[in-house]
């Protein structure tokens, strides 16, 4: 079954507590899962709250971008926001998926 925007929203919100939700989306390779969990563990160990907040912000931002790509590409109903994507080259398509998906994610997170 195709993932919904709520699946992605839950995956993103789940980062704050554990990575189960993001793993269940099946979009990460084993190596990337290991690296993501390791990064989250390192951030949690950071003693300086400002440094922790900065690192968390950067990591979450990156994950949000990645989720945006999958939302734009895979979530049903995103087609209208992506009119004209068929004729684009790979790089433009990547940008179009990410931008549209990111906006949709931001909307449901608000």
């Amino acid at each position, binding site marked *: 079954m195709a993932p919904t925007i709520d699946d992605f929203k839950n995956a993103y919100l789940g980062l704050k507590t554990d990575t189960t939700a993001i793993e269940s989306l099946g*979009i990460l390779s084993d190596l990337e899962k*290991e690296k993501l969990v390791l990064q989250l563990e390192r951030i949690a160990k950071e003693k300086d709250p400002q440094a922790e907040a900065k690192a968390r912000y950067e990591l979450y931002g990156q994950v949000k971008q990645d989720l945006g790509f999958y939302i734009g590409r895979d979530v049903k109903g995103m087609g209208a926001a992506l009119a004209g994507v068929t004729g684009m080259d790979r790089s433009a398509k990547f940008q179009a998926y990410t931008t549209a998906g990111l906006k949709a994610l931001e909307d449901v997170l608000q």
Partner: protein
Amino acid sequence: MANLDLSRILNLCKLGTDGLMEYNPSLEKYLPQEPKKLRRLSSDLASRIRSRGEEVRELYESLSNNPDAIFNIYEFSEILQEKYSLRLERTKNLKDPADQNEKLAEIFGEIRTNIIQSLGLVDADTNLSHEERLDIALQFGLRYYGI
């Protein structure tokens, strides 16, 4: 064997009896009653992983002539494949050939390390910390990559 879960048993099988002993001698007590069967299973699994190691190394080596080969490296997620493809594509915009070569070397080095780590991760014990697993995956992966 009662204390071992399935993923751990599979990891032990993949290591093979000799590899297992070398990896952690204290696990000897867990060796099953049928070592021949285990060795056969172990060698099947090892050869399958080794053969994927060879395949993926060929894909890696073809990248400089065929950047789309990145999309056949299934050890990476689709987003990682896309990102590497974009990064490789963007090197073409660098005017200075020295800068271009330096950037390409950096990207290829990263891809190679990630491939090796992905191959080795199959063997890395899930009871280790994430940091230890990634370290050991790099060592294990080198065997399958053919170095």
